[in-house]
């Protein structure tokens, strides 16, 4: 069976085609295309402009994805789109495209929960059977474990999402958004070596990142090169604290928090596998820290690379097709979007 997946919940539009050959064979990615709405350094993306971007790209990307996959329209079994969570206007613009295709080609629709898309894609790629899932992206920070037909949220952020924290931190320091703010922070952090104290806020399996952001604003002001030398922030040894040091310290602090809440969930549910999904999950330092933690628990960490970590159409196609095969479709009149759609609201009928 073959599904087309359309994703556009944030600033990226992703279109992909996936094939599930048979029950015991792994899925095959036929095509996986993405375009990101570009924004200059220091700026975020607004829903309205992002929606315009998605509308401008959606037809082009669908045509290209179908061509690249080498399939005929007749071969496609269903059209899967992101129902939520995400930003309203971009979600709607992509859902509209999905509805149009559904009517045009006479194919059933499947509305997919974005978070479940990330999880199922990660599981498929890594073959992690029943892992604790850390879902970390621009909009979400959740520690999830599967139980009784649902992905249950054990821990989450008490305020802003981790990716949002990183992106805003990057904006404060005027670090470019291209290709991803988090990626650029990661590269800069490699040159940092001094650890600057930042608020470390973990409550059980939950974490809070807004304190970090407030601290980062203050710190950024203190390393401004226009400040007189004696006013600038220095280490205990009198070295000037650099932008790279701040990136390094940010990563060391927030990723330690993530690993800690993940480890707590693993201890709590008695699992040794951990799967990291979502855009921030492509961070190598986070993956390395996770690996060290898992090693001490005699377990293993599973992660995917940027192609499948960052929002994409394939994950929507994959999760949608899993659901489609259990007989679930979304009627045209129900094919709405929702900005708020919790991971644990989805009935996971395709797992034992």
């Amino acid at each position, binding site marked *: 069976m073959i599904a087309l997946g359309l994703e556009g*919940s944030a600033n990226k539009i992703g279109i992909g085609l996936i094939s599930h050959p048979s029950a015991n064979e*792994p899925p*095959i*990615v036929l095509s996986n295309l993405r375009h990101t709405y570009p924004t200059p350094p220091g700026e975020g993306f607004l829903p309205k402009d992002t929606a315009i971007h998605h509308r401008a790209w959606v037809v082009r990307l669908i045509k290209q994805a179908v061509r690249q996959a080498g399939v005929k329209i007749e071969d496609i079994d269903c059209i899967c789109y992101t129902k939520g*969570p*995400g*930003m309203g206007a971009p979600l709607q613009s992509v859902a509209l495209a999905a509805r149009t295709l559904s009517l045009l080609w006479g194919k059933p629709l499947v509305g997919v929960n974005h978070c479940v898309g990330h999880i199922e894609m990660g599981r*498929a*790629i*890594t*073959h992690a059977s029943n892992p604790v899932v850390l879902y970390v992206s621009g*909009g979400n920070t959740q520690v999830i474990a599967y*139980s009784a037909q*649902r992905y*249950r*949220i*054990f821990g*989450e*952020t*008490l*305020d*802003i*999402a981790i990716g*949002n*924290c990183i992106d805003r931190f990057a904006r404060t320091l005027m670090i470019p958004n291209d290709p991803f703010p988090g990626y650029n922070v990661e590269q800069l952090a490699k040159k940092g070596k001094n*650890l600057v104290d930042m608020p470390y806020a973990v*409550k*059980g*399996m*939950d974490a809070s990142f807004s304190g970090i952001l407030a601290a980062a604003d203050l710190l950024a002001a203190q390393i401004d090169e226009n400040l007189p030398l004696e006013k600038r922030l220095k280490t205990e040894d009198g070295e000037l604290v650099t932008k790279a040091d701040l990136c390094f310290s940010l990563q*060391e*602090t927030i990723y*330690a928090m993530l*690993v*800690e809440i993940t*480890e*707590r969930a*693993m*201890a*709590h*549910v008695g699992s040794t596998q951990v799967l990291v999904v979502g855009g921030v999950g492509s961070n*190598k330092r986070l993956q*390395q*820290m*996770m*690996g*060290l*933690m898992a*090693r*001490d628990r*005699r377990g*293993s960490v*599973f*992660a*995917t*690379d940027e*192609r*499948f970590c960052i929002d994409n159409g394939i994950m929507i196609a994959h999760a949608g097709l899993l659901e489609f095969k259990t007989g679930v479709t979304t009627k045209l009149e129900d094919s709405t979007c929702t*900005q*708020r759609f919790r991971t644990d609201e989805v009935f996971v009928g395709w797992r034992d």
Partner: protein
Amino acid sequence: MATATDTPATPPPQHTIHILPAPFTHSPLTLLAQGAEALVYRTVFLTPHTPCVLKYRPPKPYRHPILDKRLTKARLLAEARVLVKCRKDGVTVPAVLGLDAENGWMVLEWVEGGSVRGVLDGWVAGGGRFEGVEAGNGVWGLMRRIGRAVGRVHDIGVCHGDLTTSNLMVRTGASAVRGESEGPQTQTQMQRPKRLTPSALREAAMTSDAPPVFELPPEEPPPPPSKAQSTSDLEGDIVLIDFGLATQTVQDEDRAVDLYVLERAFAATHPGAEALFQEVLRSYGESYKGGRSVLRKLEDVRLRGRKRSMLG
């Protein structure tokens, strides 16, 4: 299908068993749990007949060493301070028998019994169902005692910080208080002679020709207990453990987050127990003066946590 990047290759396990610092290097140790932060052992302390728990926080290799030292030390000290305060103010927690913050260990009084999590799982395995539990069932009493225990700890100005059903124990055995004491904590209960102060413990251990301690049943009773058995498991004092993330605070906000953490742990660990959990909250609200306003605050925290906007 695309290849999985199995991360910067996970290094092979090196030290599955940590070398413990003195004076435990040669102690008889049974690993009870590898929690998130601590290795928890059962061992003996001071006398060969005094069972105790050794909580050792080894360095976390994933954490920057400076951050790691800072966190480990601060948490160990905070944990010990809070435990001592709880004991002093009449909240049932294990006694602190020894501590070395620099080397990351603490010795605690042994609590006979099982975790609420184990007890509830056992109850389900024994045929209990969370939906539609009849009024007389002992599990309601357990919920009420949990609510009161959390209320008590909040009342004395402590927030636990990691409330899960693994971190609540039900004390069983001869010393456990049988039957359920209804209503808010009374003076007499608060002044109930504290069990096993270190000196009492020492004394007990020295004077009794009691059998050696080493073959104890595992903490979470794995064989599904019979119905009768599981009912009696529901009785007994609630003992709060694991104060590694505790803070001393009387803010409604912190207290509400504490309840929120527990609520979510409940929902995630014991699917279907939502109605039962309401009983925890109800009895919490009645257990001390500030309880109700914390419950109101909990509504805010829920909204924030659960329905956060995507744009942060």
